[in-house]
Each structure stands twice: as C-alpha cells, then as structure tokens.
C-alpha cells in the first residue's frame, strides 16, 4: 500500500496516482513503492539496478501529478514514472490543456523541457509541411499530443517548471538546437554516462570515474571484469544490456562481430532465428558513411523522401519526434548532422570510429538503441526506425541500422524472415531465460538479481513475456494471421516492413522504392482485440495497476491508447486505419498554414469523456412536415377513432310487436255467422226455390242404384259394410237410412259387418232400428246377421274375400253362427248350411258405407277384385265422391254420393230436403265469401310477384 502524502489515503501498491486526491504517488518516497513493482524501483532495487540518469532524474513538475491524475490515459494505463522524461514532461501540459484554466495555473513545462531532439530548429520549421505560427514554438514539429504541450508552453515557463525536473541534457537541448552546448554545460547537464561519451572518454575511464553518475547497469558493465564491449569476445553476455552492447562498436567494436547468442538479446529485440548464419551482417552495408553524416535518430524518419502517394508515409502520420530529422535528412551532410545532433550526442558521433551502423546507434538515445545479434552488432540498433531510413545517402546509415535491427531486433526485423519466431517465443515466455537476462532492469517487470546472472530463473521467467513492448507485440497475432509468418508478429504493424532477402537485407531495402517502403513500413494487420494487447505493453509503459486493470487498457501505451483502435482512418489511409496508432498518426492531411494542428482527443478531454463521445455523429432526423387538418377532417378522424374504439353493436332482432288485428278473426266470425245464418234460414225458413222452378235433374248414380236394388234376387243376401264414423253422419246416415229402407222393403237377407270401430257402433244403432222397424229382421230371425266389428282392416277384408264363411265364426254378440244352419243357409244361399261353402259370389250385393277414399279402395282392391261379378254399391259423402269416381269404372261398381243421391233415392223427405237446401245455401254463401276473399288475396299475390316472390308452383 502506498500512502498518499497529500491526503493520506492508502492506495494500492500498484497505483501511481492517489485514487482520492489524484496526486501522483510517484512523487512519494520511492521506498513506499513495492519491491515487486517493475517500474517504480525502490532504493534497493535502484542500487542493484540503477536507472539511467535520464530516467532517474525525471521528476515530474509539481503541477504534473494532479494533472496526470486527471489524465485518463496515463493514470489508468501507464505510469509517468515509467515514461521517459520527454514523455513525462508532456503529460502535465496535456492535462493542463484538458483541464482548462485551472490547469493552466499550474506551472506548465516549458518547451525547454523537451529534449532538443524533440525540437525542430526554427530554420527547419519553415520547410515543414505543417507549419505553425512562430509564437507556437515547436507546434509544427511536435506531434499532436505534444502540440498541446507547446501551446501550454506559450506561457512563460515558470522557473520551477519542468526545466528543473528535466535532466540537464534535456535542459541543454531545450535551449535551442542551434545552440551548441559547451562541454561544461554537458558536464553539468548531461548525465555522467553521457558526459563520458561526449567527452570521448573511453569506457574504462567512465567506469572508473563516473560510477556514481552512471546508471547502475552501466556501472555493472564497467565494473565487470569481462565487460569489454569492444572486443566482443570475452564480454559477459549479461553484464551489459544488449541494447547497450550496440554502443560497443561506438567505442571501437569490430563491426564484423559474430552474432551474439540469442540469450544476449532481449526478447523483444531478439531475432527468433537466433542463428548466426541467418542474420545478415552489417559488413555488407556502408554504415560508416551514413553514421558520420546524420544522427540516426534524426535520419530515421525521412518522410519528405517518401512519396506522398502513400498516405501512411506522410509526415503527419508519424510522431513529430520521428519526423524531426525529416527536414534536413535528404541532403544532410556532416555539417547538417552536427547541427541537428544534440550536443550530448555529438560527442558520441565525434568519438565514433566505428562503422556507420555503430555511429548511428550511438546517435540514438540509448533506449532506442537496439542490441544486435549480428556480428557487427550495430545494425540491430535503431531497428525501430529502420523502415524509414533506407534512403541512400546520409540516411543510409540509419537504414542499415534499421536493417540490422530488423534482422536482429525483434521489433525491427524483417517480417518475412523467421527471425521473430524466437522473439515471439520469448515474448510468450517460451524462451524467457535468455531474453530476460538481456533486458535492462528498468525494462523488466521485476528487479533481477543483484548479480546479472543469465541463469537467474526469476529474471528470465518474468521477462519472458513482458519485456517485449506490448504495444509492439500487439501486432503479433494479426501479423501471423495475415502473412502467415511469425516474423511480422513481433513487429508493430506500423513499423512492419516486408522482409528483404536475408542474404542482403540492407541491399534489398535500399533498392526499394519509397512507395514500397512506405507500404511495407506501415503494412500491418488490422488492430487486435484489446485483450491481446493487454499483455504487450512494454514494462516501462505498463503501470503496476495495469496488471489488474481492464484488459482493454493494454496493448498500447497509455498515451497511445487514447485513440480508439477502431477509429476509422482517413480515406486513402487504409494502412493506418488498421493500426493501433494514435489519432495523430492516422491524420494524413497536413495542417493548413497558420492552423494549429489538431490536438488528439486524449489530450483535449479526459478519457472518461472521450469514451462516451459518440463515434458517429448523431443521426439527424429530418423534421416532419407540419400537417394542418381542417375541422372537418378532424371531425372525421374523431369519428373514425370513435368507431374504431367503440365496439360494433350487433343488431338485435327484435320480434315485431304482434298486432292483434281483429279484422281476420272478425271476418272469420262473420263468415261463420253468415254461413250459420244461411243454414238456419234454410232449415227454419220456408223451402227456398233453389231449383229456380225447374225439376231437379235425376242423378245417374242414384237411378242406377235404384235399378240394381230393384233387380236383386230376394234370396241373395246383401252384405252391408259400415266403414264410416260420426263425422260424416250428416250425409251417410241419410244414405244408410235410404238404402236400408230399400232393402228392408224387399225383405232381403242382410249381413252387417264393419272393419271400423265407430262403424260397428253406428251399425249397431241401425241394426237395432231395422230390427225394430221390420218383423222379418227381428231378433232371433234369420233375416239379419250382425257380425259386428272385424279387426284387421284390409287383412280382414282379404280374409272375408277368401273365407267368407269364416265371418260367421263370431258375430257381434260373440256367437259362432257357423253352426246355425238356418243362418248359414240363409246367409250363404243354398250352401246346405255349411259355412265353409259360403262364397262371395252367393251374395246379391255388397254395399259399403264409407266416409273415406281408403275405405272404398280397400273394398275394391280386396273384395271387388276377388268377386268382380258381385255388384258393389258405395255410399260416400260428397267429399269422397270425386275420389271414388275412378273406382266406378266397372259396371258392377255403383255409388251413392251425398245428400242429393240420398234425397233422390229416398224420395220425398221434407227434413232431408231442408237439410239439402241448407247445405246448398250454405255452400253458396261459402262460395260468395271465397269470391270476396279472393280479391284481396289476388292483389296481395300480384304485389308479391312484382317483388320477385316465387310463384306458388316454384316453391
């Protein structure tokens, strides 16, 4: 835990800034930082692994901590302690810009804080593609993320600004590039380890005299008995960091030195091939010439020489600190080199007898100098910038250096070669032993052992995966996926370049066209997911908190993570659009004259606000046209809404009220009354002359019946069948009475039978009357047989026709008459008294009194058909008369129909005559009523037919 001195809040050991007050915890006592932290070395660890002075002397300006706290990028993902001062010095300025006036009150780091190699000479400013106003000193040369610093620096730098915090060698640089620092100044400002270089002292002298000022890792080198960086033979591989071994040639190391074993290289610089034979040698490159002409760290980026056709090679796409050397690069000679070289590097350049590659390596800041694995071990240095320094001429040295670095350095190597395989493996911890031992302690996650033992397992294990700059290693996987080669994986995409032939990498690169270079340099796979980038940050850029922080914060240095990875690139800038580069590297369009370059968003606003900033412009919805509706339309809308919301009322069929019309009942009653009145008139009144004075016409049927009755033999019995009921008594009784009167008058034997129950009852009544009226038919006589009711209908009729004698088995009283010989003889006529010999043909006549057509039909079908020769007389009412007409086709079939026949057959009978008159009058009245009633019925039917009603025939 780290206790904040400002607020006293305990913060995690991995925190850089106080979580409460936001003050930078880096200002706290170094002893409060945990030992396990990688970048914040404790006093003990500093003793064991001394920081370079230019890193150790970094002291954030007093206002910087709070500003850093406010800055999301370094606060969350990075540590200012891990940053070089040239990066650290910008942070407060950036934050001050972002915070506004509040931050501006803080002493902003002056431009003097910047190292001179970050500055651009005023003379070069004019030729810069993006020139800034003169008052904004350095803006035109600074990257966007540094321009804010410059803008802040427009204010008079305070005396207690960053100038005091900067190392002297940075102070000197900040005073002006054209101002050559004196040796005395160098002796005051530069670290001793640089001072020694500048003064041309050999390392032995430096080691002896400046051990206090030299970083520990330099002190160790010098103190090691076997650290002869120049001979390269007996040196301890672990005594000197590889990237410092590159400076060996500066001191006169042989350029043809064999490639160091892979263990000597830091994993992030180590070529996976590792084989000596595979690494190109720097002997094939004219490195000495280039080294003398231009400092490689100024020559490394030669943007103007790169055709602008490839937008990714434009100066704006590179950080200004990479573009600094662009202006004088193409034509720079030695003099130019001197002008652009910081004084602390001039010493190196001047004292460099080594080949150009070595010189170029010395010209670069040590942290940019890459260890080499080539025999010359120089070409591997500066591989970071190798891609852009392949131009012929003064830049060739740098180009060669980059070439070598590309071969030997993990992140500058040829992507097509297999050199990065081992590098990748090292980065993955598969070959961490050698890699960790080569890293400087300040690049390691954990302090190595006090003795730089290559076999130190902890160091080897821990540095295996983290010593590689993660923001460079982030492109590993995509590179592999894209090119299928592991070489590109270890190189940042924006530095990736196609691999030249291994045999002559520098030559191949030198022969490349600028377009190709640009394309190769920035040909990189699409941005990786943040999770993959999390572990790829270099340790010196990784905050201790980052290990436990969100995975999305990794992959790039915090100061690079501000720019969204997926930020769309400008048109025609596809290379950068796929890279994990800050925005200022994506910006390919040079700022217009007089216009300050765009400030990256991460420098303008806090990350928290920047994150919520929408990536795309909000969708602007076109304004809907205003619709003006008239009142009628509104009413119609309301009506429709009401109809829609209101449920439809189902029509209920209500039965129409019954109109109790008394017309029809009255008419009915009236008709009945009229008919009854007519009947009563005929019955009670005098006889009406209905025949109009004429005698009634004789009815042929009655006359024929009368003739037949008169012709009947006296010994032939007459079968009288009563098949009628009381409903037709008004007509049938007069007929029965009339016929019986005719028969009894002649003393004819009579056999009464009935198949109808009511007929048997009515028959009984008539038999009793006949018996009473005539002595010949008195009870016990043989003139009359009442057989009564014979059940079975047509079955009984069929039995009668088949077995006529069987009728005598049971009479009306239940007696069997078959044994009565007198009866059988009388009734069967000459049968000898045997009932079984009785036949229908022995009958004189069959008279059927029926009131229905079925009665006639049954007798005709069952009896008349069996005995057609026997005359059959049907006495029926007028209703059945027309229906029995078809059965009267035979001459033996006769009929008496209704009262007229009875009246004609019976003779004069006043009562029967009045009844007939009443019937006739009643029928006439009924006819008149029908005529009257037919008129409205006809009209109604006509109206119905006009309405399309179907006719009665079509129903």
């Amino acid at each position, binding site marked *: 835990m780290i206790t904040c001195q400002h607020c006293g809040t305990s913060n995690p050991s991995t925190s850089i800034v106080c979580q409460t007050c936001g003050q930078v915890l880096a200002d706290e006592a170094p002893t409060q930082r945990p030992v396990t932290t990688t970048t914040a070395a404790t006093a003990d660890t500093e003793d064991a692994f001394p920081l370079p002075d230019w890193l150790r002397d970094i002291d954030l300006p007093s206002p910087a901590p709070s500003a850093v706290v406010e800055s999301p990028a370094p606060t969350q993902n990075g540590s200012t302690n891990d940053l070089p001062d040239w990066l650290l010095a910008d942070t407060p300025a950036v934050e001050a810009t972002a915070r506004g006036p509040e931050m501006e009150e803080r002493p902003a780091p002056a431009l003097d804080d910047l190292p001179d190699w970050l500055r651009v000479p005023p003379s070069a400013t004019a030729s810069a593609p993006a020139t800034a106003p003169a008052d904004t000193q350095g803006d035109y040369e600074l990257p966007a993320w540094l321009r804010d610093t410059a803008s802040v620096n427009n204010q008079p730098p305070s005396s207690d600004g960053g100038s005091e915090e900067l190392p002297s060698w940075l102070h000197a640089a900040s005073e002006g590039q054209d101002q050559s620092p004196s040796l005395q100044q160098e002796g005051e400002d530069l670290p001793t380890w640089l001072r020694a270089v500048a003064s041309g002292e050999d390392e032995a002298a430096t080691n002896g005299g400046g051990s206090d000022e030299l970083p520990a890792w330099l002190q160790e080198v010098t103190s090691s008995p076997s650290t002869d960086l120049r001979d390269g033979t007996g040196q301890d591989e672990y005594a000197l960091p590889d990237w410092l071994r590159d400076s060996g040639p500066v001191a006169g190391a042989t350029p043809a030195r064999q490639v160091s074993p892979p263990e000597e290289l830091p994993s992030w610089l180590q070529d996976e091939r590792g084989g000596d034979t595979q690494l190109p040698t720097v002997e094939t490159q004219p490195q000495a010439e280039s080294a003398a002409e231009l400092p490689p760290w100024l020559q490394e980026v030669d943007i103007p020489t790169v055709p602008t056709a490839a937008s990714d090679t434009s100066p704006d796409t590179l950080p200004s600190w990479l573009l600094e050397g662009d202006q004088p690069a193409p034509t720079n000679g030695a003099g130019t080199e001197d002008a652009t070289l910081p004084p602390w590097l001039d010493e190196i350049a001047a004292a460099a007898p080594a080949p150009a590659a070595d010189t170029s390596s010395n010209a670069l800041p040590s942290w940019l100098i890459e260890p080499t694995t080539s025999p010359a071990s120089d070409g591997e240095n500066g591989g970071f910038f190798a891609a852009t320094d392949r131009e012929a001429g003064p830049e060739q040295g740098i180009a060669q250096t980059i070439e070598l670095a590309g071969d030997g350095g993990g992140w500058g190597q040829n992507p097509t070669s297999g050199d990065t395989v081992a590098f990748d493996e090292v980065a993955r911890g598969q070959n961490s032993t050698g890699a960790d031992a080569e890293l400087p302690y300040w690049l390691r996650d954990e302090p190595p052992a006090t003795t730089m033992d290559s076999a130190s397992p902890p160091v080897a294990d821990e540095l295996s995966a983290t010593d590689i700059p993660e923001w460079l290693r982030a492109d590993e996987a995509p590179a592999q996926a894209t090119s299928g080669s592991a070489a590109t994986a270890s190189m940042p995409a924006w530095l990736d370049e196609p691999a030249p032939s291994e045999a002559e990498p520098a030559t191949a690169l030198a022969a490349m066209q600028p377009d190709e270079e640009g394309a190769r340099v920035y040909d990189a796979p699409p941005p990786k997911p943040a999770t993959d980038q999390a572990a790829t940050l270099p340790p010196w850029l990784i905050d201790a908190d980052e290990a436990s922080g969100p995975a999305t914060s990794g992959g790039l240095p915090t100061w690079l993570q501000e720019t969204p990875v997926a930020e769309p690139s400008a048109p025609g800038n596809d290379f950068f659009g796929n890279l994990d580069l800050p925005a200022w590297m994506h910006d390919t369009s040079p700022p217009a004259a007089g216009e300050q370059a765009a400030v990256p968003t991460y420098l303008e606003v806090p990350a928290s606000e920047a994150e919520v900033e929408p990536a795309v412009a909000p969708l602007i919805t076109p304004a809907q046209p205003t619709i003006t509706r008239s009142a009628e339309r509104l009413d119609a809308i309301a009506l429709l809404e009401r109809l829609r919301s209101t449920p439809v009322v189902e029509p209920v069929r209500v039965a129409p009220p019954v109109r109790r019309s008394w017309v029809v009942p009255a008419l009915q009653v009236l008709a009945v009354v009229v008919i009854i009145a007519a009947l009563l008139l005929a019955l009670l009144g005098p006889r009406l002359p209905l025949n109009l004075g004429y005698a009634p016409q004789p009815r042929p049927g009655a006359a024929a019946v009368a003739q037949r009755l008169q012709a009947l033999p006296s010994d032939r019995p007459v079968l009288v069948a009563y098949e009628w009921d009381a409903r037709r008594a008004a007509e049938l009784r007069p007929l029965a009475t009339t016929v019986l009167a005719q028969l009894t008058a002649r003393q004819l034997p009579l056999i009464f039978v009935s198949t109808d129950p009511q007929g048997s009852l009515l028959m009984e009544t008539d038999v009793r009357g006949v018996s009473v009226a005539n002595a010949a038919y008195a009870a016990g006589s043989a003139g009359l047989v009442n057989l009564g009711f014979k059940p079975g209908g047509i079955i009984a009729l069929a039995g009668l026709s088949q077995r006529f004698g069987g009728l005598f088995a049971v009479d009306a009283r239940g007696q069997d008459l078959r044994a009565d010989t007198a009866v059988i003889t009388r009734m069967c006529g000459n049968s000898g008294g045997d009932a079984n010999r009785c036949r229908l043909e022995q009958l004189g006549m069959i008279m059927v009194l029926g009131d229905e057509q079925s009665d006639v039909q049954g007798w005709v079908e069952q009896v008349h058909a069996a005995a057609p020769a026997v005359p059959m007389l049907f006495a029926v009412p*007028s209703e059945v008369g027309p229906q029995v007409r*078809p059965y009267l086709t035979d001459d033996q079939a006769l009929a008496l129909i209704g009262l007229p026949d009875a009246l004609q057959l019976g003779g004069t009978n006043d009562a029967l005559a009045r009844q007939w008159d009443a019937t006739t009058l009643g029928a006439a009245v009924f006819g008149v009523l029908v005529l009257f009633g037919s008129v409205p019925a006809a009209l109604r039917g006509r109206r119905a037919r006009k309405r399309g009603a179907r006719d009665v025939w079509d129903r």
Partner: protein
Amino acid sequence: MGPLIGGGIATVLTLLVLSRAIADNIAYRLAQHALVGLALGYAASALVRATIVPPVRALIAGTATIEQLVVLLISVVLLALFLTRFGRQRLSHLANYPLALLFGVGAALALLGAVRGTLAPQIVDTMRLPGLTSPDITAQIGTALVAALTLTTLLSFMYATRPGGPKGLGRMGRATGRGLILATFGVFLAAAVTTYIAALAGQLNAIIQWINLLLESA
C-alpha cells in the same frame, strides 16, 4: 227422455265445437278431447270384445275348437313376443317378429290389392278405347278429353327444366296442366265444403230438433 238428454248433450258439444270459430277456447278443447276419448275408448272396447273375449270365452266354456285353440295359441305367442317391447327391453328384438308378420302381411295385401284393384282398372279406364268406338259422340269426345287432360296434367310436372321455364307450347301446356290441377283441387274443395256444410246443417238440424223436442217436452 233419452232423445232429450242425448239431444241436449249433442247440442252442448256442438256449441262447444262451434265456439272455435271465434277463437281457440277451452270449451272447444273440452269437446274435442271428449270426442277423441270416447272414440278411442269405444274402439278399444270394441277390439277387446271382438278379438279377445270370444276365444277366451270359448276356451273357458270348453267349447273352443282346435282351430280356435291354435289361433288362440298363435295369438298368445305373438302377444308374448310383442310384450317384450315393454319393461327392460332385453328381448325387445323379439317384438320384431309379430310386427314383421303384421306389416309384412299388410304390405303384401295392400300392394296386391293396389295393383289389382286400383292401378289396372283405372289405367284401363283412362285408356278406355271402347269409348272411342262408341257411337255416342259425347262419349268419344269425353274419352279423348280425359286422355288429353291426363297427359296435360302429367306434363305440367316437369322437375327438370330450364331456369326460364318452357317456351312456346311447352309453356302453354304446363299452364294448362296447372289449371286442370287447380280445377281438380277446386272440385275437391267444393266437395269438402259441401260435406262440412252438410255436417253443419245436419248438426244445426239436430239442435233444432232437440229444441223442438225440448219445447214439446216442456
């Protein structure tokens, strides 16, 4: 007294039935139900008395012949089978045998009698060729007219025809046939009206006679 009481009951019942001419009323219903009940009661008693009592009486008296006994036995068996329709009806299917015998014999007799007593005689009478050869001209005209009207009437019954009906002679023949049918129905109606008017007149005459009898007795 008998004719006076009987005439009085007949008069009351007649008035009750005639009350229906005004509206449906309980008096009409009473007379109607009394008529139906008395008719059914008398029919039932007549059937029992005519079919069951004679053989049973002969059987009890010991005067029944073998024929009567066989008929009685068959009647009892058929009656027993028919009684299975009542009760739980487990053996109700046995009632089908007497019913089958009854309807079978009746249908056979009806069919045979219809063909023999109705169809053949009427068809022959309709095509009465002797009438055409009769020296009576009216008989010849009547025979021809009956044949023509019969055909016209039969042609009026066209069950499959075009939507618009027959055209020309067909339409006229159909109208003629329908006219003949309506005339026939008119004849039937007039005959029925005559019957009912005669019945009304006869009933009114009975009432008048009863009133006369009542007046005479009074």
